[in-house]
């Protein structure tokens, strides 16, 4: 539990505890960018370790890395490309859900764009799996819909 003695708010750090019990430090100005965290700080005070039940130790450091760059105004297209370069689709999804939970708007927008880019021209079955959607169409209903929207399905890959 970190108790910072510094007087200026800009150098103050906040402690965050993930759902799997690990603790990470983040600067107060970066925490401000995550509205959920800020709300918890407003309610619980900034000396308490903020619990984040739905965010885990695998993804929080990456999120902290993003906002560390953000508060110095250094986020560029190159940085963002590098940020997601080695992440697979599932890792991006996890970050996206965390950004949504944390109400971290800038990261959320960036990851939305990245997910859209990754799903471009992927098959319908892949996208269903990715989003966690259960197909509740009958085969007849589905083929009818595909026919109606035939113009939009050109160029989309089919899963084997």
């Amino acid at each position, binding site marked *: 539990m970190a108790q910072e003695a510094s007087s200026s708010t800009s150098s103050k750090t906040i402690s965050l505890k993930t759902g799997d019990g690990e603790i990470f430090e983040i600067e107060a100005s970066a925490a401000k960018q995550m509205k959920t965290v800020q709300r918890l700080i407003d309610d619980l005070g900034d000396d308490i370790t903020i619990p984040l039940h739905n965010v885990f130790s695998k993804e929080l450091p990456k999120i902290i890395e993003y906002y560390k760059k953000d508060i110095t105004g250094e986020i560029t297209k190159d940085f963002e490309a590098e940020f997601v370069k080695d992440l697979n689709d599932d890792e991006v999804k996890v970050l996206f859900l965390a950004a949504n939970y944390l109400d971290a708007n800038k990261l959320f*927008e960036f990851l*939305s764009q990245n997910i859209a880019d990754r*799903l471009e021209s992927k098959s319908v079955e892949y996208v269903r799996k990715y989003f966690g*959607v259960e197909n509740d169409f009958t085969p007849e209903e589905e083929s009818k819909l595909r026919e109606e*929207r035939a113009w*939009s399905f050109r160029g989309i890959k089919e899963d084997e």
Partner: protein
Amino acid sequence: MRRRNRINQLPDKILHRILSFLTTKEAVTTSILSKRWIHLWISVPNLNFTNITIDSIKSNNKFNESVYSVLASRDGAGYDLDGFHLDIQYVNHHFAYRRSFPHVVKWINIVVRRNLKHLNLNHDIDEPDTYDPERDAYLPQLPTSILTCRTLVSLKLSRFSVEGLLYVSKVEFGFPCLKTLYFDTIYFGCGRNFVLLLCGCPVLEDLQLLNSCQTLSSRQDSEAIQMFQSLTLPNLTRAEIMETLWSHFPLKALSTVKSLSLDTLKLNTHDQTDDEDDDEENPRQRTYIDIPIFHNLTHLKFKNSWGLVVQMLHHCPKLQSLELSKGSRHVREDELGNSAEEPELVPECVSSCLKTCTIRDIGGLQSELILPTFILKNARILQTMKVWSGWMQKKSEIEEKLSPCPKASATCQLFVH
């Protein structure tokens, strides 16, 4: 295994954010994910038909069918539209103007009635432009319904002509919410109408004018010239005006910008029709009577007419980055005007703010090295000076002449390409 949320459990509003980054065609494909998704794409507030190629009657009909069906689905639900983006590549004029455009106009007439905020219309044709006697024009006519869309926040258009507009009352012309205006190859049959339009965009922040040509006549357009000269754009932070020939252009309307790209050869403050002996081979020294102080300008890109550069530098107290180029036109020695000798006074920005400087198209004339030398000698916090030799010029010759030059900044690095 930890419990994980599924994206599908998120509310519609959140899913819209992802869908809005897809093109409309891709968004429509999500309609077969499940019953919940059948109509989800419809309320995505942006329509994006980009990377479209029309090269046959079949592709033209399919594309038209798809846009109509999308618009019909949305119209049925009565949704507002935030953005409409079209980017189409046509194989020839026939497909563009006979088969496609009449429909494009219909679509635009529909979307502008939906409180549209962002409109982006681009098209290109593989054939060179030819004169169409039926339309008496080279470029397609801009749908005038766009001009009635008062909710627009950004407007980006390329390759249209705006003609046949009667003189419009000042009060109704223009976009009161418009922050971004990009015009590329837009021809106004009547220059006055462009002035009225620009004066009707008081909150403009980002202005880009590429490849346009307009003249105002002192005799016929005196009221419009007055309006133009007194134009203020207090929120303007970025302006790019290239390959654009304009008479009476008010430089001071750009005075609040942080970033400016200017092609100065073709801008002048007087009526070109007055200069009978002023032709391309003998351009008169263009002096701006009224260069404003650019209090916020940190990035300047200047093309042509280096004679103005030093004068300009005296009006940019905070300039950090300077880029100069000449363009393809060969510049004669006497055209460089003031820069035949080293300037007497060092502009404040050069000595205390300038961090990067790029100078392109340097030829063999001694006078062309005066400016880079002057900057190197006086720019105390300069970090990078990049010099590009012109296409006939050997890089090593320039390097020989510039490398020994004394540098005011100890950390300055010189690159010659």
